[in-house]
């Protein structure tokens, strides 16, 4: 197959990915939003809309802002197919994003390429399926598993899944990128030390931290490009 045909095929794939992604997202939304009403009808107790709107105004708006930030940050990392699936299946920060980034690195895919799009989609679909299977098995075996999983001795391990993940990821990504990593790490550490109440809003702090890292990366990129230019 020649290059032109491959590109046409890939463009066709992307187009249908958007169509399918939107269709699946709408279907999932409909199922999720109707489930409380269906369950409510079964229990003879439909949701109390007054309480719902009060609750939405007090907590829903906070999550709306958080979702905007997540959307802007994660879509460039995940590509089209990966984004649709990731937002349908959730657990982005503690699984989908690190999983997709790791997969991309393992195979050496470059951002914005067809390879990156495909690897990201495969990675998110696989990790989502694993979660679905683990949760289904867990729910099936809930009674025999509960004492083991909830034993006080194991609690610290499961309370620290995210620190364990980010510690490992930090080593992998700081290594070789220390010039980019040092400043955001210092700034964020100082910020959380001086304003400890921000710990509850860590997901919002990704934006300034990412902006510092990208700014530094851009400066280093320009300097490297200028050096290469003068060497030539």
């Amino acid at each position, binding site marked *: *197959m020649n290059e032109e045909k*491959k590109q046409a*095929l*890939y463009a066709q794939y992307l187009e249908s*990915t958007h169509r*399918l992604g*939107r269709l699946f997202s709408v279907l999932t939304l409909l199922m*999720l939003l109707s489930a409380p*009403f269906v*369950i*409510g009808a*079964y229990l003879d107790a439909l949701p*109390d809309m007054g*309480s*719902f709107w009060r609750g939405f105004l007090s907590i829903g708006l906070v999550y709306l802002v958080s979702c905007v930030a997540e*959307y802007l940050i994660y879509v*460039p990392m995940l*590509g089209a197919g990966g984004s*649709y699936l990731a937002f349908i*299946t*959730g*657990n982005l*920060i*503690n*699984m989908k994003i690190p*999983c997709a980034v790791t997969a991309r690195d393992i195979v050496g895919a470059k951002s*914005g390429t067809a390879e990156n*799009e495909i690897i990201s*989609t*495969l*990675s998110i679909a*696989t990790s*989502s399926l694993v*979660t679905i299977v*683990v*949760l289904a098995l867990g729910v099936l075996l*809930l009674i025999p598993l509960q004492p083991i*999983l*909830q034993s006080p001795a194991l609690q610290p*391990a499961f*309370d620290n899944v*995210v*620190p*364990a993940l*980010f*510690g*490992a*990821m*930090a*080593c992998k*990504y700081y290594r070789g990128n220390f010039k980019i*990593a040092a400043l955001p790490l210092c700034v*964020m*550490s100082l910020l959380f*030390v*001086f304003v400890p109440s*921000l710990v509850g809003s860590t997901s919002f702090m990704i934006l300034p931290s990412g902006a510092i*890292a990208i700014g530094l*990366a851009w400066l280093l990129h*320009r300097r490297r490009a200028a050096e290469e230019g003068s060497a030539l």
Partner: protein
Amino acid sequence: MSILSQLNSPVLYLICGGIVLAVALMCVVFALRAYRIGRAIGMDVTKMRRTVVASATFAVLPSVGILLGVIALSGSLGTPWPWLRLSVIGALHYETQVAEAAAEAVGIHGLSASQMTAKAFSTIALLMSVCIMWGMVFSIFSCKRYTSRLSAGKSGSGEKKRSAFSGFGDTAMTAMFIGLVSAYIGSYVGTFVSGGGRFAFAGDWLPLAVAAVGALAMWVFLKIRDRFDAAWIDSFSIAGSMLIAMTAAIFLARLR
């Protein structure tokens, strides 16, 4: 019939299980399409298989953590609903917070089975669904436009723009991820140093220590990979490092 028996009834399992199954099928469809197009455009099949293996091994441990979230919520919301929420859209760290806040909004003090009513449950369930659905809503309306703009930005409109940005896409993505990790590591530092009063060094040090063990374990994995030219280790290094760090957490917690 108690409220928990109602919330754990077969009908609820059927409703929630049906939605989980539908989402699993969506994942299969996306995976198969990606695999097929990858083969069609001549991508290395070994790379795609490595991706599947690495992602599957990577996902096991966080999934067990998510299962604990299901167990934690099942005491007050029954098992089927938390199972659905944490399989679809939900996120481990959001779901419990939203459920607690939603419970307060409907007049229950915290999530407790003793105060739960069927009406409160259906209202909490609706709030949980609506609060975290926005990523999907934005995807429906703007994912195509957003990704197209990103691609256009990468290709650039003029020669000067192209040369300035060429090769920066990957660095930018890596930098964004470094920013993300730095925010979380910084929060662990802040928790330890000022969590128990500013500069009191009396906050919880366990997350920081666990992150350090995870980093150390990853460093060893990377050294082994480089020393023995063992690229295959990449597929298991994150999961392995997490397992070591989580095991360390069990022992370190005894020192608190």
